[in-house]
């Protein structure tokens, strides 16, 4: 499905929803404290630039991320979510990211099953040393979400944002 029809940005899941001309996606980034948050700090200290759509939430470990954070994010404020943790084997808490990985896969597939584009929720492993990678990941996620268009997840019925 083409997201942009006649230069109008529409929601890929609900083409009847058209984005306002100045629409900018909101992306929630949930980062683990020890690797990805440190990595994102390094991106900052290295002055590597990335798109400003991401809003970062710090958690101790990717295993702290309950799938319903993602659901709640999509349901309320976000057009997309990025969760990032330590590389497999590098978890500060030994095994947290392995548990998280399983949950993420199932959550992603389930959301896709009920009609959300698979790029709405994305995951990455970013170590504390991978400042440049973090910038790349954010740029990719932002670009993906921009292509997907706004996510009006039933929230229109409740709020005039």
């Amino acid at each position, binding site marked *: 499905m083409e997201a942009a029809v006649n230069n109008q940005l529409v929601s890929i899941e609900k083409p009847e929803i058209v984005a306002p001309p100045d629409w900018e996606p909101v992306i929630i980034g949930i980062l683990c404290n020890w690797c990805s948050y440190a990595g994102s700090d390094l991106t*900052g200290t290295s002055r590597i630039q990335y798109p400003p759509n991401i809003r970062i939430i710090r958690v101790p470990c990717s295993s702290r991320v309950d799938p319903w954070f993602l659901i709640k994010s999509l349901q309320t404020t976000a057009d997309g979510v990025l969760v990032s943790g330590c590389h497999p084997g590098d978890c500060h808490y030994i095994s947290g990211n392995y548990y*998280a990985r399983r949950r993420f896969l199932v959550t992603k597939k389930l959301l896709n099953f009920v009609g959300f584009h698979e790029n709405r929720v994305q995951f990455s492993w970013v170590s504390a040393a991978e400042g440049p990678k973090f910038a790349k990941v954010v740029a990719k996620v932002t670009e993906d979400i921009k292509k997907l268009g706004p996510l009006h997840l039933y929230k229109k019925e409740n709020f005039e944002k």
Partner: protein
Amino acid sequence: MARVGVFVCFCGANIADFVDVPAVVEEAKRIREVKFAIDYKYMCSDPGQQQIRDAIVQHRLTSIVVAACSPRMHEKTFRKALSDAGMNPYLLEVANIREHSSWVHQKDKKAATAKAADLVRMAVAKSIANEQLHEISVPVTKRALVIGGGIAGIQAALDIADARIPVVLVEKSPSIGGKMAQLDETFPTLDCSQCILTPKMVDVASHPYIELIPYAEVLELDGFVGNYKAKIKKKASYVNFKTCTGCGACWQKCPVKVPNEYNMGIDKRKAIYTPFPQAVPNKPVIDARYCTMLTKGKCGICSKVCEKGSIDYKMQDEIIEREIGAVVVATGYDLWDPKPYEEYGVGRFKDIITSLEFERMVSANGPTNGVPVRPSDGKVPKNVVFIKCIGSRDEAKGIEYCSKICCMYTTKHTILLHHKVHGSHSYVFYMDIRAAGKGYEEFVKKAQVDTGATYLRGRVSKIYKKGDKLMVRGEDAQIGQVVEVEADLVVLATAVVPNKDNPDLARLLGVSYDKYGYMSEAHPKLRPVETAKAGIFLAGCTQAPKDIPDTVAQASACAAKVCGIFAGDTMKKDPMISTVNKEFCSGCQNCVTVCPYGAIVTEEVPMGHGSKEMRTVAKINEGVCQGCGSCVAVCRSMAISLAGFTDPQIINEIVSI
């Protein structure tokens, strides 16, 4: 009703150049709960902190948001400021508007400002759900367990014991001393290894605060920092150490001869033996694999010659328990088996030996009385080829890392050869000479001059036999030619690998280990002696290859860490850990399954108020919990919450963007 104070930092120009700081303050003031908002040039400076302290008092604030650099930078600073103003330090939230906004969106001030305002709003929302937290104190058992009686274990045990803290030192073999006891002289000073080690071994044995348990293994370690319980298996020695005087009559008369591990199998020992003459404790043990009395029920000579009647063939393994507050792991290293180097003829040619075999031969108390000999014919070698990096830095056959000590000990060996065999000549094949260390480079330079050894930079491609000599063919990269050296003896500087028991031990201790089997430190730079499991520390080659000075330094560092834990009667701990709401807990114990630290146990509570019926619920062990939150995410009933990262806090952040 929450009263939040917001403090936005310019960070000089770092933030202010790319984020409209006053606009962020204005935006913050629009939030209902924000009762005070201000900006300042350097919030972390003392006047900046003073503003926070003043505002807390003046505006009766209930939580504080500082919008500045990363919380990883100054969270502690600002927490302290809160504390100083009489506020619970955990009511602070930091909005990271420098690393996450001003520094990464330098081309778009409008977007960076909007994002900074959002980050502040999120921090405010989170802080509203913050709770007052208090440091946790955990009682500690002031006794340390040191696993491994090599130089690392000895040093750690002595340092801890000198601080008048009881130490339990467990050693796998019959005597402490470890690899260092096998060495002849040590680089770069060439002191005699035994001379500097054995006094320390004796100190261990006689120290009133050290309980030495030789010939034993740790079977289990339960509990958490300050409160471990260790199960230790004392292997049956068949000799009553209490009555044995160490006279040596038994091993002198014992008829069974077996290869001597201490001398790398070059000579024989008896089935009842002390590993080496200076062993501590200097009491023999019976090697049950070989003793004919134990295997076939025939012999019994040692029992007959023992005047004290100390021999007990019916002795069983004994399991003892000790309560422990902290653990130092010092299990040391092994040497890599060079078998994969088939092209060198390893295994086929007797005159190719390892460096530790050479070390034993040149050792004054060694099997050849300090003179190196060819294993094939017992002749004293003249031309000796030393090949470095056997296994090290070799991804194809061995391991990727540099073993760190081989350059230095090979240099030492050339000197020892030079001293012991007149007219001898050393050839050293090397990749690089890595002599970083105090006095090391000088040592190498001096040795090269003094011994006149030939250093050939290049890999050996083949060794073959020519008569009774070995022909070593290799490349001299500096002249770019293939060279062949006629050798009487070839010494392989084999790589350092972790003790083969390391992975098993790491698992039972609950410590992670890397792909080679070295135990993993908590942080490679800043926490090199701690493990991720609180109260367990690493000394020596159990963590990575090290030379003796580094090992001793790390062992002393471990001792300092252990003494730190034991400095008070209780231990302070970060309060950001999980807690269980018993009312909601349904006792499914999924949290118990996923906890990487075994920090969750179960307890029985009444069904309801005053009910006699009991139900099982989870209970977090405060001392063990490290606050990862794995349990929180698998708790379907939302009965577990992680202080500092509770569901309301995170959801508040999500819905406030």
